[in-house]
């Protein structure tokens, strides 16, 4: 068995002086879709930000394809093929859709063509000359994911991709995520929308108060309402 593509080992992260992650360990295998669930404030977003290098862990190690990446700046980590799609989407509002994509592709080792992106998201082709600010929430999320795709990222970290979106659009994005998963892309997704996340995840971790408290398959989670109630509040 080969080593997992992304290995996180006992990381501890802080915001200022408040301790957020406590010895968090998890790994994501090649071509695997892993969901990271938990209540608000459990440390999910912090986990993703720590992996991306936005936040440096105080201790612990993060390895991508066996090579340590903790403590590296985000741009170096991105160039190694890891890509965070942040919760707030962070679309450049002053840039057009196409400029957002071109910017993302600048330093990618093997970028997708714009055409390929537009086949994936026909809506973005229609809006390619629109400023990022004029996009609806769903379009912004598509663009945010598209920016990771155009970089042909090996591992995509999705932070609450369905947050604040209408059900129809969520369904669309779930379809996209499933397609990506089927194509063999590696994804670590954080989501409050448990149903949506479970619908395309291979494996699940649950985070509570900065600790990993459970690890298993979507099936075993669904079969355990008490667990869901205890850690996800549903």
């Amino acid at each position, binding site marked *: 068995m080969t080593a997992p593509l992304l290995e996180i080992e006992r990381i501890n992260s802080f915001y200022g002086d408040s301790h957020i992650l406590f010895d968090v360990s998890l790994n994501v295998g090649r071509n695997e879709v892993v969901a990271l669930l938990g209540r608000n404030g459990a440390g999910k977003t912090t986990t993703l930000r720590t992996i991306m290098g*936005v936040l440096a862990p105080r201790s612990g190690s993060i390895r991508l394809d066996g090579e340590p990446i903790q403590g590296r700046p985000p*741009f170096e980590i991105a160039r190694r093929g890891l890509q965070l799609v942040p919760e707030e989407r962070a679309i*450049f509002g*002053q*840039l057009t859709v196409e400029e957002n994509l071109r*910017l*993302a592709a600048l330093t990618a080792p093997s970028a997708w063509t714009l055409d390929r992106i537009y086949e994936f998201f026909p809506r973005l082709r229609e809006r390619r000359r629109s400023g990022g600010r004029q996009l609806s929430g769903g379009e912004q999320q598509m663009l945010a994911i598209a920016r990771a795709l155009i970089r042909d990222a090996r591992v995509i970290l999705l932070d609450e991709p369905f947050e604040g979106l209408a059900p129809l659009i969520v369904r669309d994005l779930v379809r996209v995520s499933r397609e990506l998963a089927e194509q063999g892309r590696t994804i670590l997704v954080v989501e409050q929308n448990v149903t949506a996340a479970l619908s395309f995840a291979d494996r699940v971790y649950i985070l509570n108060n900065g600790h990993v408290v459970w690890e298993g398959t979507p099936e075993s989670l669904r079969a355990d309402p008490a667990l869901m109630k205890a850690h996800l509040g549903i």
Partner: protein
Amino acid sequence: MPSAPLLLSQAFNGLALGTLLALVSSGLTIILGTLGVLNFAHGALFMLGAYAMYVVATATGSYVLAVVVGAAFMLVVGVALERGLVRLFYARPHEDQILVTFGAGIVFTEVARAIFGGNALTVPTPSWGQGIVHLGFLFYPTYRLQLIGIIAALLFALYLVLYRTSIGLVVRAGIEDARMVGILGINVRRAFLGVFALGVVTAGVSGMLYAPIISVEPDMGSNFLVQAFVVIVIGGLGSFPGAVVGGLVAGEIIALTSAFNAAYSDVMLYAVMALLLVLRPQGLFGSEGRV
């Protein structure tokens, strides 16, 4: 009421001054808009450019060489200033950034004074720029006329760099959200260095081009610094089109009011700025929010 020919020629003078102010202010506004740093050393960098022109042009007699060597020199100054000082201040309050660049300006000015003395030096007009052109409605010094063209070309080149290249894409994205630019695999710190150096070179080249027109002295930059501030307040902080339009507006205000009453020309510039601050505080091209 001044005569029509006088007004016309003053309008033309305004264009000449305006293009220069546009170029000086562009350098300032690029740094401000991207890095959030108000560079109080900008006037001193303008002055350094003029001295570079003086040194190389008087030594070699070649203006083209002087501009090339001078621009390279300014690039080195810009890189050193960013790496050595300004970089440490991106995360500090605006007031600290202002203080440290103000201090750098003092040091540059005093270094120039120590080397060249406090007396005004003159850079002769280049051979290809001597003489006077008859424009129909007025006679105009050839070099000043050429300068309008040269600066317009430089502004256009800046426009191309900022809006038609990937550097510009990074800069404009960096203005909005530098962290996300980094997450997309771009070395933001290097981009910032490039932006700062570009702003410094712009200030220096402005000083080089203007050196044959004014006397070169250590304190020559401060007036341009303040006028550039007014220009970017008028145009909108951090906006390149704002700096260009603001520069032209400022140039015309100074030139046209002096056709009526020379004593008030500088005062009028500030009065217009005050008016704008009341009516449209974000400037002509600025958007609310930043700063």
